[in-house]
Structures are given as structure tokens and as C-alpha cells.
């Protein structure tokens, strides 16, 4: 197995298959296809043999055996660290962290080891590792099972950060992550596993490429993950008032698609970034600042208040960004944009 080149990618399959499936099924299919194409791809993590707690590995151990779909102890540091060692020794591990909150128990292994290995050893090795660490609010799961930490990982040189929002993107981006050869923080959303949609196995989605979901001239709205659903609802309400919104699903947090976002900002003159993560020092701040610097557009951010996610419905709701809040933020931004500077 040659570490210097990405594994053979079967994405360009001769026959195009489009099937309706869930976000979890799409992920399992992506791993299955990668494992079929390359014996170096292995999975390790808690409960993966039974399909994973969200069904995101369903059927894989039956198909590929316990040697390649490895049930592990509750040892996040060892799971992530062993993934690094496996990658250095010629494998392409999918490292399952269960939820991003638990991945924090493997942070030295991701941050100091996986992310820095290639650089600090002068390019002697590569760490082609995909760390799956589902994020976001999971209903009634409270402070330690509900975090959105993509900005942490975006801050780390060496890492790729991905946040898919649809079954198609979860299939295609997971294939891309497994093929890219870099360590990837792959952040699926805990509340999207059952969401359904068409998946075309032949569709290639490159890392670092955003998707423009709606076109409009009044405002650019950037979001990712499950938060896009509320954004789409807000866009409907704004459209009813004749406000056309350019809605962009960032999909890859790092490297983020500056070209697509900045071109839209230059055209619309106003940018609203909405994310489920805490607003303070969130990745929206990076996008807003970049857009303002590059295009001079008006910018606004909308994220969660800097409070832990609470359990009781009324408490949890304080951390959710719902459509009316997005619509109101958009209208405030447009009012501001209409004022002379």
C-alpha cells in the first residue's frame, strides 16, 4: 500500500445508481464502497460491529469481518491514537468517536499527533485518517452530547473539517474524505441520521466546494449542517416579501469555499452567516471577517448564545437558532445595508 497516493476511488462507476436512503445509510454505503475498493480501509470504534449507535456502520462487520470493522473498548485516546499508528503503518482508518463531545477524550491524539505528524516529521509520513465525530444538538441530550465544535478543528493546521447536510453529501463527502490522504474531522449531525434523500453513487463532491442551494440578489446566507433547514424556512418567508436570498451550504468548513462565498457577497453586498455553534469565536466570524475584508459587504452573524445546552425544552430552545430569528436577522442586516455608511 502506497501512502503517497490516495486510494483508488470507485466514485466514477460505470453505471449510475440513484437510490433513496437515509443520511446514516448513505454514510454506511460510502464506507462500504471504500472498503470494497481498498483493503487498507478499516473502521475502529465503539459499537461499530453492531452497526454503530446511529446505524451509520450497518452491515459492515457482517460484510468485511471483525478484523476490518473493529469493535473497541471505550478508550477514545487509544482509538484515535491507534488510528494514527495504523495510518502511519499503511492503513486508512475510519475512526469512530460516537459524538464530538467524546472525541474530546482523544484530543492530544487528533491535535498534537494526527494533525501535525506530516509537517513536524518533515513529510516522512502521512495520516490518512477520517475521524467521524457527530456534532450538534441531539434532542434532550444536554450539555455533554450537544456541542458544535467545528470552529475548534478549523483552527488547527493540518486538519480538513467537513459538515455534510444531506444523504448525498454524506455519501460523496465521506468518499472524498477517505480518498484525500489528510486527517479529516468529519462532523455529521446527530439529528440528521434519519433524514432521507436521493443518493447518486457516481456523484463526486470535492472537498472545499460549497453548494449554492438557492439564488437571490438581496442577501447571501451561509450555513451548514442541520442549521440549513431553518435557513431554508427563513428564505421562504423572505421570498414571500420579495427578498431573494443566495443560500449557500458551506459543506466543508476547512478549506472553506472562499470563491463561491465571496463572489456571492460581492454580488449581494450583504452576508449573514448562521450556525448552530456558539456565536462567539464561531466559524461564522471567520467568514464574515473575510467577506468584509475582501468585498466590503455588510456582514452579520447568528449563532447560539455562549451557554451550555440545557436539558429541559425551554432551556434547550435557548441554544437553537430557529427560522424566525434568522429571518429577523436578515431583515436587520438589509436595513443596515440600506443605510449610508
Amino acid at each position: 500500500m502506497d501512502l503517497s497516493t490516495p486510494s483508488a476511488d470507485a466514485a466514477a462507476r460505470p453505471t449510475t445508481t440513484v437510490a433513496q436512503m437515509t443520511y446514516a445509510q448513505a454514510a454506511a454505503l460510502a464506507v462500504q464502497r471504500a472498503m470494497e475498493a481498498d483493503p487498507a480501509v478499516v473502521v475502529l470504534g465503539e459499537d461499530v460491529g453492531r452497526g454503530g449507535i446511529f446505524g451509520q456502520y450497518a452491515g459492515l462487520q457482517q460484510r468485511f469481518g471483525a478484523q476490518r470493522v473493529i469493535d473497541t473498548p471505550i478508550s477514545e485516546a487509544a482509538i484515535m491514537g491507534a488510528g494514527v499508528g495504523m495510518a502511519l503503518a499503511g492503513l486508512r482508518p475510519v475512526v469512530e468517536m460516537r459524538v464530538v463531545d467524546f472525541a474530546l477524550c482523544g484530543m492530544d491524539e487528533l491535535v498534537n499527533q494526527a494533525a501535525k505528524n506530516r509537517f513536524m516529521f518533515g513529510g516522512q509520513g502521512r495520516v490518512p485518517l477520517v475521524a467521524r465525530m457527530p456534532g450538534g444538538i441531539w434532542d434532550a441530550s444536554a450539555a455533554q452530547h450537544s456541542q458544535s465544535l467545528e470552529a475548534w478543528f478549523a483552527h488547527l493546521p493540518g486538519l480538513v473539517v467537513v459538515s455534510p447536510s444531506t444523504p448525498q453529501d454524506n455519501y460523496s463527502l465521506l468518499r472524498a474524505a477517505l480518498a484525500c490522504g489528510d486527517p479529516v474531522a468529519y462532523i455529521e449531525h446527530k439529528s440528521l441520521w434519519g433524514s432521507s434523500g436521493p443518493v447518486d453513487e457516481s456523484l463526486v463532491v470535492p472537498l472545499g466546494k460549497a453548494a449554492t442551494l438557492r439564488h437571490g440578489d438581496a442577501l447571501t446566507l451561509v450555513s451548514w449542517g442541520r442549521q440549513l433547514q431553518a435557513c431554508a424556512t427563513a428564505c421562504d418567508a423572505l421570498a414571500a416579501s420579495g427578498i431573494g436570498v443566495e443560500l449557500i451550504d458551506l459543506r466543508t468548513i476547512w478549506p472553506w469555499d472562499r470563491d463561491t462565498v465571496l463572489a456571492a457577497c460581492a454580488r449581494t453586498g450583504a452576508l449573514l452567516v448562521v450556525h448552530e455553534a456558539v456565536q462567539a469565536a464561531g466559524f461564522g466570524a471567520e467568514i464574515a471577517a473575510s467577506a468584509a475584508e475582501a468585498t466590503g459587504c455588510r456582514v452579520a452573524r447568528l449563532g447560539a448564545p455562549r451557554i451550555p445546552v440545557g436539558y429541559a425544552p425551554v432551556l434547550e430552545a435557548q441554544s437553537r437558532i430557529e427560522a424566525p430569528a434568522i429571518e429577523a436577522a436578515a431583515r436587520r442586516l438589509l436595513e443596515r445595508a440600506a443605510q449610508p455608511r
Partner: protein
Amino acid sequence: MTPRQSAAEQLGLFRMMVRIRAFENAAEAASQGGVSAYGQQAGASAKVRGPLHLSTGQEAVPAGVCAHLRASDYLTSTHRGHGHTLAKGADLTRMMCELFGKATGFNGGKGGSMHIADFSVGMLGANGVVAAGLPIAVGAAHAQKIRKATPGDNVAGDAITVCFFGDGAINRGPFLEALNWARVYALPVLFVCEDNRWSATTASGPMTAGDGASARAAALDIASVQVDGNDVVAVHAAARRLVDEVRAGHGPRLLHALTYRVKGHVSVDPAAYRDPQAHAAALESDPIALARAQCVAGGVPAEALDAAERDAEAEVAAALAAADAAPWPSAQDAFADVQTTGAGQWI
């Protein structure tokens, strides 16, 4: 005692030990004034900059263990890793170049002493984080096991991984997680605890419950051997048996080598916190002096030992000159080998 090694083996072990000692003595001298710590202020003149962790007095452990290894075996190391690196077969000059921060170093000047590595001989890296090498080692051993069972894979059928760590590392969680993991999956890994009695500038004893690495291994059903880590003959013999068992597929083993850190935590640490009498007593059991006596008893001519020391000094002198003359990395090299996806998007 009749040595269990041939005279040639003994001379080989001695030669490796004096190479490690000579390298570290030179690096130590070149590092003075290279780091702001312990009341000293770094200046621009030092050739070796930043923290330099010396394994002076511990040379018997890497020499005795790595004599049984091949390039196809993996090794993970610690922040005190010069000896492991040399003993695994890495080139001394390229290691000195790396300590000098030069483009010709193993890492192109990107790592320095704390991240010394030579993947070409299976040395997967020193590590700036205590105990961080343990999970990486079990992952490498796990990959070896998987690849041995994969049809058509070219991995050596009896390849193993050796994991060096210190006594301070056994108080970090990854030690437990990695040993448990290795035993659960019956991995081909040899854990080697270099018990040098110090955790940075704190004595390990009062900070450690129980009887240390070998006792904790026993709790996880991993067979271990405790050995005088300053006796290279004993280390070599114990390691041979353990390496053979690991190669034969019997699962993980642990070697608990009792040694002593002669220098401070880093090269500019005078280690004034140590008891002078205890320190002086510990210095009496210098592993190189003992190895010399064992060699002589085993029939190695004293002239050969003297020549080995002269050779080591000459090799190190040449390495210093080469490192001094070598080019610096270019500023652009700071942007190479960060990541492929998104390369160029630095802001």
C-alpha cells in the same frame, strides 16, 4: 557470570552506547544558551536551540533492545529519543542536522530534537507529549497484524512494534488504554519502560501508586520482565526473549528497565533538586563503564573498545561540522507538508 552474548555482539552493543553518549555530549554542549529556562536566557549563538532532553546514563536500554530489531519493525519514542533513534539504525549526521534545524535533517528542520524521526528505518518518531507514543505504537502493531492477514500484502510476517516510554508516562491515561488495547487484540508490540526515576523535575516514586510499569502490566495480563537497565548484557538478554515471544505471535510483552537520568530534565537544567549523595551513588553504576568491564571479561580487546570510542568521537565531530555547514530550510518550506486538501489556503 558468563556473558550470553558473543564478543562481537558485546562490542556492537558497546559501540552503539558510546555513539549515543558522544552524540548527546556534543548536542548538550551545542545547546547551552539555546533555551530560556532554569534562570538562563536564550541567545542567538547556540547551535542547538530549544528544549534538549538527554538520555545520558540510559544508553544500555536502546542499545540492548534495538539490537534485536530490523528496519521492518516499527519503533515509537519519547521526548528523550536520541538513543532510540540511533539504535534503530538512523544516521547520526542527519540527526545532528535536525538538531541544528538544517534542511538536511531528517525532518528538514521542522521538528528538532523532540520530533526526531527516521521513517526509513521504522522509527516513527519521538514525541513532545508524554505517553503519546503508546497509542500510536499499538495502532502500528494493529496495522501489522491486519496486514499480515491481508492476502497479497507485502508486510513482513513477523514484524513487530517496540514502544519506548518513561516512568512518568505510566501515570497518563493513554498508558492504560494502550496496554489494554494491545492485550485485547493480542498485538505484536513490546513495551519498554525506561524507568529513570524522574518525571521532569519531580521524583516519580512519590507520584506513583504501586510498583510501577511491570506491576501495572501484570494487572492487564501482560507478561513483563524487570531488568537492570544499566546492564546492557542483561537488557540484551531479556529483550531477546521478549522480542522472540512477540515475533512468535504470543501478544504484547513489557520490559521494565531500571535506569537513571544522569542529566536534568533538559540540557540546561542543573537538577539541583536532587540529593547529592543519592546522585553521586547513582553515577557509580554508569552503563558504559559496566559494559566496558563486561566486554573485557568477555574477551573483547581493550584496544577495540578504545577504537570504538575514538570512532564515535570522530563520527560526532564530522556530524557537527556537516550540520554547521548544511543549509537552512527556505522560508517557503514552512508551507510544505501541512496538508494536501486546501494547500495554499493559509488564511
